[in-house]
């Protein structure tokens, strides 16, 4: 079971991982990925737009695909929307599994598919008021194609 959530507020990585591990002693590996607003070029903020009717459903479909490919993996994915400041977390992927290989693979798969198959769009905003929509990256498509 891999849950999906879409929210504007922050998330609590420790609570997400604890929820997966609670009452289980068969899980030897937990992986957590946090994506953050990067601002090395002076970015002031990032706004994440989503498709209200489709984005959560698509996240759930991505989660279901990961659960099918790695049946022993538990997990959750949380993606934020709205305006976020440099350093703020955007996305959290948590996986747990008996062995580390599956936990790492499922977490990477979930991120690669979230990047390329979930309808979100990032708009960058600088201190002088200029804005720019982030371009999709070929490297993200290549990463997603690994799992085809």
């Amino acid at each position, binding site marked *: 079971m891999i849950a999906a959530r879409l929210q504007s507020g922050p998330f609590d990585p420790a609570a997400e991982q604890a929820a997966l591990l609670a009452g289980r002693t068969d899980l030897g590996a937990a992986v957590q990925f946090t994506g953050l607003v990067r601002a090395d070029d002076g970015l002031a903020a990032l706004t994440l*737009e989503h498709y209200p*009717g489709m984005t959560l459903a698509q996240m759930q479909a991505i989660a279901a695909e990961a659960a099918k490919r790695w049946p022993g993996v538990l997990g959750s994915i949380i993606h934020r929307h709205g305006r976020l400041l440099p350093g703020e977390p955007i996305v959290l992927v948590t996986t747990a599994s008996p062995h580390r290989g599956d936990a790492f693979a499922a977490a990477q798969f979930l991120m690669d598919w*979230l990047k*390329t*198959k*979930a*309808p979100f*769009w990032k708009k960058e905003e600088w201190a002088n008021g200029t804005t720019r929509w982030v*371009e999709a990256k070929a490297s993200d498509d290549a990463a997603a194609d690994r799992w085809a």
Partner: protein
Amino acid sequence: MVELLYFAWVREQIGVDAETVALPANITSVAALLDWLASRSPGHAAALANRSRIRVAVDQAFATPDTPVAGAREIAIFPPVTGG
């Protein structure tokens, strides 16, 4: 009638986030829809000028240029996604 939804810079260039249109009977595919939409206003034309930068979802499922649009209730048009 079909509800058209626009996101990100497609929305900004067209100038509205949604519009309801009656599709002519000869508009049967996503590709034909985009051609027809591009003729509706300079904003539509600018937003849809480079089809390689346009993605479409028909009734909330990702579509390709030859996906049928007959009977669709909601068609979303947007740039390649950049979440994560």
